């Protein structure tokens, strides 16, 4: 099936004017599958890390949200062991006015402001609520261990 014009345009714009700290490029085999990198925001526990994600545009995109998942391990109350992300715009708050770019910017913002009151990973969230400094320490360790490798 032909690729919708919207996907072509979004892809061109993502490549031509990438958002700061974010890169996204379609895979060669499948134009709906994007390899994404997000740089850990400064002043967050993820600073210095480079996070790989996968983003897939389902058949009914943009009426349905893109499917996005972290591939790099990350210690974050709204991201689980499998890299799944708890973010309202990826679920019930999706709107076709949103785009790949805005979704990735939202994920970048989520790294800057973890929300332990709406957890996906209950263990991480509990740690975050009970001892935030310790949680941030773990997140920094994980950043160093998993997100700073040269690969």
């Amino acid at each position, binding site marked *: 099936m032909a690729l919708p*014009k*919207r996907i072509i345009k979004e892809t061109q714009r993502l490549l031509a004017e990438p958002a700061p700290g974010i890169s996204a490029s379609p895979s060669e085999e499948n134009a709906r599958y994007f390899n994404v990198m997000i740089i850990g925001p400064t002043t967050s526990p993820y600073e210095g890390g480079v996070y790989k994600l996968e983003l897939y545009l389902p058949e009914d995109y*943009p009426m349905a949200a893109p499917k996005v998942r972290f591939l790099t391990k990350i210690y974050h109350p709204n991201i689980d062991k499998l890299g799944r992300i708890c973010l309202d715009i990826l679920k019930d708050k999706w709107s076709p006015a949103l785009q790949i770019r805005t979704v990735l910017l939202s994920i970048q913002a989520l790294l800057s402001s973890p929300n332990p009151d709406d957890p996906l990973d209950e263990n991480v969230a509990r740690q975050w609520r009970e001892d935030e400094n310790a949680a941030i320490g773990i997140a920094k360790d994980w950043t160093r261990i998993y997100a700073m490798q040269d690969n």
Partner: protein
Amino acid sequence: MGASSSRSSTVVAQRRHGPEDQSGFTVVNSNQQGYQPATVYNNGPGRGRVQYTQQQPGGFYGQPQPQQPQPQQATEKKKTKTIRNDVNLKKHTLKMVQDESDPSVYYPTFKFDCGAPCSVSVFFLATESSSEKLRLRTSVQSPGKRVFYEKQLGCTFPPENMDKSEYKSYGIVPAAYVEEQLSTVEANDSEQKWPICIRLECVSADQALQDHSLSDLPVGSPMLDWVQSQTTYAVLEKHESSYSVKVHKQKIWVQNMAYELQEIYGLENANAREGAVTGTPADDLGRECVICMSEPRDTTLLPCRHMCLCHDCAQMLRQQTNKCPICRTQVKSLLEITLKN
């Protein structure tokens, strides 16, 4: 995401007064862009039929239609009839200016279009009763005389040929009032008291009604079938050493009915031409449909009035989420406007 309010003069109008058997329609107005006859879609269960419009200089078209419950069904298109509005005050131009000869007095200045000879009347602290066909009663300060204008676009008030000493007869001395009297609308179930009302009136474009003269109509009197008018309702806000006007609403009176005018959000973007001034790509100007990102935006969602889609995507949205992509409000109907570029 999010739409900013359009500064365009294009509006949707909603009927406020008139026979009870007619309700739920919308009309559109523009005096900036050329409109071609548009198409209306209606597939909501018994919800507002939408209307659209056509352009002539200063023109405003649309017409109420009787409403019947509609079964939920595939989207249908309807052609609509139109009505015309010949007088339009450009609300962003309305300002209060201090009188040169008497600094205690502030008078309104504004720009407007009239597609027919018209008159301007200015009212302060005027009471409008919902049952009296837009009659405006003043008790504190009587309105000045009508100021007459020839048919013209881009008129200014006060008129250039008026002696400056006369300006203040259309002004107010704000210091003579308690601040709240000027900054708030006093309202109850049946009446509203507005700090400022400005009414533009002309004789109906209907040939059969042309033998009337505005001079026959007392200033502020109830609207008659041969009158076509637009009224702008505003409050005065005090700043350190000046006053500003805030427009709350505008109503038009056409063919014996009153309509409230409402802006369409994003229409100005849709009008912007790609790269016309800055070389900005069309997507940055918000000119393309937010869903397909290919076709120009030509369809406004109602009731939220976000113009963000092309007609094909709007139809598709109706059958899927049926929520506005900008604000997520449930869509009741679609309003398609074809811009003549």
